[in-house]
């Protein structure tokens, strides 16, 4: 598969997706950077193995996910530069499988089948992880929190159900 400039630009355009996925999986932006770097190095090692443009995002996410799991998808809850302490912490309490399934389906907008290929499992398993992970998030944050949990302007500490506005 030849890499043309458009192909390369699309890979560059997917860097924010890869960084967001790795950050959400690990809870640590610095680790995410290293993991994404490793995934790109893998592409550099074997440019012929890079997927065609139509499946570039799925291919890159697959490579990245493998690296995350190889390192051990242990969330680091100590360093949050994102300002999303509550939802990041809640996500870190999920199993890695629930976390990746929810992120791929909900945030990346992939179908169960596509997410299953990336995670090397089947669609029913992805669906179950999404359902159980969602229920778990709801338990952790509480139904009251969902107004604000993802809001970019919500200050830290604002998301807990009991905290003052």
């Amino acid at each position, binding site marked *: 598969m*030849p890499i043309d*400039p*458009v192909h390369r630009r699309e890979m560059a355009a997917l*860097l924010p997706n890869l960084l967001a996925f790795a950050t959400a999986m690990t809870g640590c932006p610095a680790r995410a950077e290293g993991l994404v770097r490793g995934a*790109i190095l893998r592409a550099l090692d074997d440019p012929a193995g890079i997927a065609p443009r139509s499946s570039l995002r799925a291919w890159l996410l697959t490579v990245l996910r493998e690296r995350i799991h190889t390192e051990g998808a242990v969330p680091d809850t100590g360093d949050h530069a994102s300002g999303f302490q509550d939802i990041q912490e809640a996500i870190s309490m999920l199993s890695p499988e*629930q976390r990746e399934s929810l992120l791929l389906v909900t945030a990346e907008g992939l179908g169960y089948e596509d997410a299953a290929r990336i995670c090397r499992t089947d669609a029913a398993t992805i669906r179950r992880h999404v359902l159980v992970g969602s229920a778990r998030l*709801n338990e952790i944050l509480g139904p009251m929190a969902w107004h604000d949990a993802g809001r970019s302007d919500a200050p830290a500490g604002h998301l807990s159900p009991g905290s003052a506005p």
Partner: protein
Amino acid sequence: MSKGTPAIEPNQNGDATNPSVLGDESMAEPALSPEIAARIGESLRLYYDRMMREPVPDHLIRLVDRLNDKVSAPDAD
């Protein structure tokens, strides 16, 4: 840090009080109201989108640029 990835062990981080995390497909699934499910999805998307707006480190962009040096592709489609 644990090396390697264990097989799925939902109980590790799952909820011990929730039997559906045990991994058996025949078990009951948790039921969320569509409204709550939609809010969770929206919150996750906002969280993810916010991270996607963070600036991409230059060294990663330069790394992708190196694909040009690795592969010269005279025939762009």
